[in-house]
């Protein structure tokens, strides 16, 4: 009885009794969700264009952040103003990520073209090992402080605390999605990408080079990884654990669908809010640390009703 009360009544009573805290929970959930979305976005871009489930996305975020901090350290002694260093380092990191995409396409994807998806998935795993080793070998395994001048303060709005870094992340994610939307709908390359996503054969027959498309999409995913790496790394410092944020993106993916950019965003927000509310308001039922499995359970239950995810393409079976 007591258990049922804690499960079914108390949490909702709490939400009503503590509206400010409830709002703060919601806001923090949304903010966490944005950060998940940022990671999920990279997965979706690549999956959409090439059907590859890129396990290395998390390590790419780590690699990008490591490169950024490393380059900033290198530029530090030059005496240039901080802002210039940051801009230069970010630009250089973007170049590195594009180079990385080129190398990946040439050495991993091209030889594996037309292979089964699970083989490509496996190859991205091998890739994540390589990047992990290379990142550590190049830049060392220590925690590196990443400070590109993002605001770290907290706004106190009538007792609701909002971290400026989170808001920055939300703005970054929002602009990223806007830019991507423009890119996909307004540019020739973007339209080509969508053609590839819809039908590889058709895309090839109208003269779109799959190789180019892959390089572009992996570059874009690399840049998304950089943004995710900056946002997460600013909080925890840049270190190996950054690569594990990929796990946070997986429930978002199945909830939002592997192929939908809005799905990644909405899915992230749902997961973020859902897990925070359950963790906080149902604490007396479960005793904490349920976020990880709750996100997956939420996604799983959801999938039982919509196997293709929130915005995924409908699966039609035929013989």
């Amino acid at each position: 009885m007591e258990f049922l009360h804690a499960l079914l009544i108390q949490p909702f009573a709490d939400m009503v009794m503590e509206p400010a805290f409830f709002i703060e929970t919601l806001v923090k959930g949304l903010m966490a969700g944005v950060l998940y979305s940022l990671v999920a976005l990279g997965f979706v871009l690549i999956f959409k264009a090439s059907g590859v489930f890129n396990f290395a996305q998390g390590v790419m975020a780590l690699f990008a952040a490591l490169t950024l901090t490393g380059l900033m350290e290198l530029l530090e002694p030059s005496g240039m103003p901080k802002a210039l260093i940051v801009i230069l380092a970010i630009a250089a990191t973007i170049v590195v990520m594009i180079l990385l995409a080129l190398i990946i396409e040439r050495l991993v994807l091209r030889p594996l073209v037309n292979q089964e998806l699970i083989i490509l998935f496996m190859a991205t795993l091998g890739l994540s090992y390589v990047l992990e080793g290379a990142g550590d070998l190049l830049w060392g395994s220590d925690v590196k402080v990443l400070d590109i001048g993002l605001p770290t303060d907290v706004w106190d709005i009538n007792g609701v605390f909002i971290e400026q870094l989170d808001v920055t992340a939300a703005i970054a994610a929002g602009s990223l999605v806007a830019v991507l939307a423009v890119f996909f709908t307004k540019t020739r390359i973007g339209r080509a990408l969508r053609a590839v996503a819809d039908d590889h054969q058709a895309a090839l027959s109208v003269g779109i080079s799959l190789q180019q498309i892959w390089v572009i999409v992996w570059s874009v995913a690399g840049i998304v990884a950089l943004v995710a790496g900056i946002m997460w790394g600013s909080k925890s410092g840049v270190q190996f654990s950054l690569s594990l944020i990929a796990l946070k993106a997986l429930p978002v993916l199945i909830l939002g669908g592997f192929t939908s950019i809005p799905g990644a965003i909405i899915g992230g927000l749902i997961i973020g809010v859902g897990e925070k509310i359950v963790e906080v308001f149902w604490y007396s039922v479960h005793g904490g640390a349920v976020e990880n499995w709750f996100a997956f359970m939420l996604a799983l239950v959801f999938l039982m009703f919509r196997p293709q995810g929130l915005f995924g393409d409908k699966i039609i079976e035929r013989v």
Partner: protein
Amino acid sequence: MLYRETGQFKRNYAADQQLFPIFQDKILLGVILTVALAVIPFVINDYWSKAILLPFMVYSFIALGLNILVGYCGQISLGTGGFMAVGAYSSYKLCTAFPEMNLVFVILLSGGCTAAVGVLFGLPSLRIKGFYLAVATLAAQFFLIWMFNKVPWFYNYEMSQITAPPREMFGFLVSGPQASPTAQYLFVLGFLIVFTWIALNLVRGRIGRSWMSIRDMDIAAELLGIKPLKTKLSAFAVSSFYIGIGGALIFHIWLGTVEATEAFDILQSFFVLFAIIIGGLGSVLGAYLGAAFMALMPVGLKVVLVDGAGMAVDTAKHIEIMLVGSLIIFFLIKEPHGLARMWQITKEKLRLWPFPY
């Protein structure tokens, strides 16, 4: 010439359907079994047992189980770590609740518990497919690990780090610190041989064909009268049974102590999945080869780089990680169907070698 089949005629269907129809394969198997049963037990020491053979054998066992689900039945699962934990913790509970029970039964029963849990988490597979299913099985992974860490009943209200009590077989200790490497090795080897044989029987018979038909074309299979849910769940059950036993063996024999969050984390799930993809999906031999690759390659590289080349441990580790990653990619490009297929092709070449024309 080494693998010449000429002259080896099969006079009835029974002979044609045996596990190793080619004479040379029988010899090879005989040699391997002789070494495994009659040589290794006498020369094995702690290092070979704990660092090389036990990990290899246990992961082969688990890879075998996962290969049944992924390779034969086509259902990708990333819940392996969680199922291993079910095996380990249920064997701990059984073992401490019934101290008189023989360890073999304890381990078999914990395999049974894991099979039940596996069936439960296999239910969504009726509706969810492919990578969606893979990610959905992560729910099992995270939930089970959380549960074993959270609910004190599972670790007898002590530390969540559980320790295997000493147990005997035929008067020899097989678990606990005093157990001899020979006894532990033979114990695991016994499981491995028996259950490899069972797996071979299953995959070559009716049940194996029903799994493969679901994997290759589930709709056609259904129209042949194969019930998809029953078939998928049977694969989940058998697979989890193997994985659970593997988890119990890790706990009782290899490590002697485990903590769910560390020993059976998500990386274990990936580790075993990689093993079967590298080794060869849908191949019993592939499970062995993949486990050897994933479990022994790092040890081998470490020995070569650190002890051999005198490299600093961290540099060596980074290079080792990169090498393992590159090798994975290399093998996938060379032979996407895994080491088992590579062996098969080698065998086909050996039929003619050294006179290929």
